[in-house]
């Protein structure tokens, strides 16, 4: 099928994401970058976007009000996005413990992706961002709920999953591959499989 026909069919059948009245917390030290992300979210239909510049402010907002999703820069001062994710996931009496967390990072090295995954992030988005990459990843979080795993050493989304493209084929790129992951025989997943998975998600960017 020609690409244009496939894209038209995908667009017609793709699920529509409704961000209205969802509280989205954008945590980025750069006010301009934060404003750009806010602009993209507004374009997607979001009307309740909060911006903060530090991890302390994230924790303050989380303790003061309901937040539905956190978009957090990996280098957010002072804790950094990954330590902050661990702090949110690790606090047992925290009502936001299971909140979707998307890490935005200029560093998309394998090591960083592994660390984000092990900290309990739902997804990593490579910076610079594009509206398409942001929409596809939010959509993926929205339409593919993952189980949560609670062990003595990890609390967060199940790290054993495979990507089969974004909802209804949207966002799937020529280079995207189906990834077979380890058998579901325990809470841990072979490192290589998870790395491949996140690599695949990254290379699926525009």
């Amino acid at each position: 099928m020609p690409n244009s026909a496939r894209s038209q069919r995908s667009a017609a059948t793709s699920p529509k994401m409704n961000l209205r009245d969802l509280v989205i917390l954008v945590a980025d030290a750069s006010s301009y970058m934060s404003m750009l992300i806010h602009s993209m979210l507004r374009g997607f239909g979001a009307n309740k976007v909060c911006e903060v510049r530090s991890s302390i402010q994230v924790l303050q907002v989380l303790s003061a009000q309901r937040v539905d999703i956190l978009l957090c820069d990996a280098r957010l001062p002072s804790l950094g996005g990954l330590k902050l994710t661990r702090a949110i996931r690790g606090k047992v009496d925290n009502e936001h413990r299971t909140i979707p967390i998307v890490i935005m990072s200029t560093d998309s090295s394998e090591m960083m992706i592994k660390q984000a995954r092990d900290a309990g992030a739902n997804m990593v988005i490579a910076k610079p961002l594009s509206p398409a990459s942001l929409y596809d990843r939010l959509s993926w979080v929205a339409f593919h709920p993952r189980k949560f795993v609670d062990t003595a050493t990890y609390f967060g989304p199940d790290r054993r999953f495979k990507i089969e493209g974004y909802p209804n084929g949207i966002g799937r790129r020529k280079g995207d591959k189906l990834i077979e992951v380890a058998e579901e025989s325990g809470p841990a997943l072979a490192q290589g499989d998870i790395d491949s998975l996140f690599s695949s998600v990254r290379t699926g960017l525009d």
Partner: protein
Amino acid sequence: MAKTPKLEARIFLMETRFQKMARREGGVARNDAIERAAVEIEKAEPGFYEWLDDGLRKLKRLIAEARPADSSWVEAANTHSRQLCETAGTLGFQLLSFIANSLCDVLDSIESGGNCNMESIACHIDALNLARQKSYRRLTPEQVPELTEGLRRIVERI
């Protein structure tokens, strides 16, 4: 040898409010959402040049006041150049983003104990000033191969 204790795992399905609400009727289709987001970004673009100039001024000041004994400026300069790289890239200013990213590589190397070559930093600042000009803003790194190669060689040498 003692056996590693088996980890107990609790696995549960957690459908968050975000997931429930995002799937409601009345959402925005992908293509419409992306188009609208692009329009919103365009509205924000005019402020970029002011932000860029301010960032470049801060970078220059940091570098002018840099003292070899005090490395705190490196972290601050790295933060500025990383933000510049991300923002310029998000707005589609590929050349600016490339140069800022190359400067991050130089500063990363200094942060991890590498040689602090101020000349290589000055070259990057000059390149950023050039790429900021109207006639260069929308160029890609491939369209200015001499500049791109020059910066690549600088980074390779550090």
